[in-house]
């Protein structure tokens, strides 16, 4: 499905990226405490280089223009010696980071725009890839995933839920929370300079379980097998309670149960009513679903990794040509418009196969083995995904 990149196409991408970094050099900002962080990058030959460090913003800017990386990363961790090997770096602490990715959020449109193909038998299908090829059982499967505006909206929703946990439950002040569009398929949320910096992997695991709703026990809600209704009623949450208990109680206010008369009753009565109707097992499943709805779908691996490297803000994503961009106002942010930063300059392409897609307010495609002329931003988008190659751009 993907076409391999020829030299001409790689040269085109590098030229485009270099020009962008050259013109926008002043917008590349050093992350705070830059000299305590590790940097790394992936070149357009897909070689990963790590353990770099920069002392000044100027050095970093010069590096981008000179090396023209496909992707640039910086560590969320602070080290004594960022350039040494992992064991010798001397970990001092790390920002608390979250990654929300469209891939892991189920949306109906995936059936339309995502597809996969088995590398061994060429069997293909639409939607999310199966673990194994249903025909030959192979696990070598190529995917082509798109993050359309619906997918990205769903992702944004998860980010909004996440931020609410950070503010309300964890009491992190707003100015310490930075939200970025990742430049491709989701959002990155970073908490910098907070007292959480020193937390180890186990503690971060608890934080990530809290946010993603993992391990919630009915007992913490006040429901216990074999307990009397009176006892349980006293232990159930009220709507204005903080934390998960309060969240679940408020959710119940929006629910309707057949035969339940709301008048003069407390939310606890309603929860108990539901429990009585469903029984322990039924109620347990029901609560799981609620927790699932209220939790934020974050990538647990990212949050618990205290050495993680993360894409550097204000740099280009090599697979899309879009920017990792700060969202000052998340609600009104439109990634497929606001993060598209390359120009409209026309480029001649050969597109293998691409569905209809929208970028910067224009709609493109579908294309099927054809030559087309597209604006630079859309060209890089297709080329970066491996769906097109440049045939002539002077």
């Amino acid at each position, binding site marked *: 499905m993907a076409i391999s990149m020829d030299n001409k196409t790689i040269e085109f991408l590098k030229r485009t990226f270099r020009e962008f970094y050259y013109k926008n050099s002043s917008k590349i900002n050093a992350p705070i405490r830059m000299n305590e962080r590790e940097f790394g990058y992936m070149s357009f030959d897909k070689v990963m280089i790590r353990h770099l460090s920069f002392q000044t913003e100027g050095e970093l800017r010069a590096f981008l223009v000179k090396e023209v990386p496909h992707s640039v990363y910086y560590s969320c961790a602070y080290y004594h010696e960022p350039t040494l090997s992992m064991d010798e770096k001397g970990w001092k602490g790390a920002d608390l980071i979250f990654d929300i990715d469209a891939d892991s959020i189920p949306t109906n449109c995936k059936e339309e725009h995502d597809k996969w193909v088995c590398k061994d038998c060429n069997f293909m299908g639409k939607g999310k890839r199966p673990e194994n090829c249903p025909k030959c059982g192979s696990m070598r499967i190529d995917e082509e995933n798109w993050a359309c505006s619906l997918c990205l909206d769903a992702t944004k929703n998860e980010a909004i839920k996440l931020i609410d946990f950070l503010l309300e*439950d964890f*009491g992190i002040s707003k100015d310490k929370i930075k939200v970025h569009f990742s430049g491709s398929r989701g959002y990155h949320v970073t908490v910098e300079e907070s*007292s959480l910096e020193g937390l180890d992997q186990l503690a971060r695991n608890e*934080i990530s379980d*809290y946010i993603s709703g993992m391990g919630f026990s009915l007992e*913490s809600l006040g429901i216990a097998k074999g307990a009397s209704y009176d006892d349980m009623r006293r*232990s159930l949450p009220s709507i204005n309670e903080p934390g998960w208990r309060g969240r679940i109680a408020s959710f119940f206010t929006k629910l309707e149960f057949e035969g339940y008369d709301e008048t003069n009753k407390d939310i606890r009565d309603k929860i108990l009513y539901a429990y009585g109707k469903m029984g322990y097992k039924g109620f347990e499943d029901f609560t799981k679903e609620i927790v699932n709805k209220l939790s934020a779908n974050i990538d647990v691996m990212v949050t618990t990794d205290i050495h993680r490297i993360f894409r550097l803000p204000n740099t280009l994503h090599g697979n899309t040509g879009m920017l990792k961009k700060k969202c000052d106002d998340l609600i009104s942010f439109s990634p497929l418009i606001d993060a598209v930063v390359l120009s409209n300059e026309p480029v001649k392409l050969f597109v293998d196969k691409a569905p209809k897609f929208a970028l910067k307010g224009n709609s493109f495609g579908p294309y099927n083995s054809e030559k087309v002329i597209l604006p630079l931003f859309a060209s890089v988008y297709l080329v970066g995904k491996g769906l097109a190659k440049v045939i002539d751009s002077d």
Partner: protein
Amino acid sequence: MKIEFGLEDLAKYPFLKEAGDYVKGLSLSIEDLRQDDYQPALKRAKERVIEAIQKNFISIEILEPNLEILSFPLALMLVKAIGIDYFMHRYSLAESLRAERLLEKEKKSIISNIFKSAFNVNLISTEHDVFDFKMSMIDYLIRATHFHKPEWKLINRIVEKGFVYVKTHELVRLMREEIRRIVYERMKSLSLPKIPENIKEIVDEISKALPPVPSKELQEVTPGMFPPCVMHVLDLLQKGQNVPHYGRFLLTSYFLGIGKSVDEVINIYPKAPDFSERLTRYQVEHIAGMRGGRRRYKVPSCRTLITHGLCFKDEILCDRIKNPLQFGRKPVNFKKKN
């Protein structure tokens, strides 16, 4: 802000640095310990050590605060003089359990002061009808991640604006390890002066009363805290005494139950000739469900252990538990106080 403690408080919690300052204030020299005035404190110190190492327990009665406070550094000196790391661990653990018992019944204001002074943890007293305090999420997480029951998970706590609500007994449980460490470190860093004869005698007396030191292997699998029933069987094993069949079953199923591997469990058993390792392995694997019925045997319940005469219930630590596996992890429930 300087925290003030009364003499009674220092007697209850002699690991506090304020208690240390108090003793320093007396400017005693090691030679003074020969004087008759100090014999009661030495006697209490000896009691502390013997109780601690034999029974994992130090009585909480305080007859005379002065004497009690003084007996603590003396006890540390005695244990250090014995010169065996294993007993330093065991002693520290017993001290932390003693503090735990006392803290459970302590006034909220004193608890806050102790946490501030000893652990630099700020507690905020709450009027919540289930919880006594809230503490910062960070202070909570650093400690609670060492516990694996669901009720300790952050998601099962009330978390509000960066604070986690806790009950007194949970708080005390969270700090057990820290008190143990404080006591241990204090002992470790103690430099022994030249010890007068009368104290040497006490050390000798104590040494005679001590249980044998377990093998390296056992110390590795058992650095923590075990329920009294398990401790009892371990002690029998170490002393080379006859262990009833059911006691072996308890030991094996318990250590498998807390996640030890078959090999680790086999190492608990001494390698005496009558304990042919093959037989031990066979039995352990059988209980682990690797042989025969392939069913992993459960740890017997406290009730069953009582009927076998193997229960040595500790009123506080075994409170409300039905199975040795629950030892030291009383379930959190949201039942209201009173």
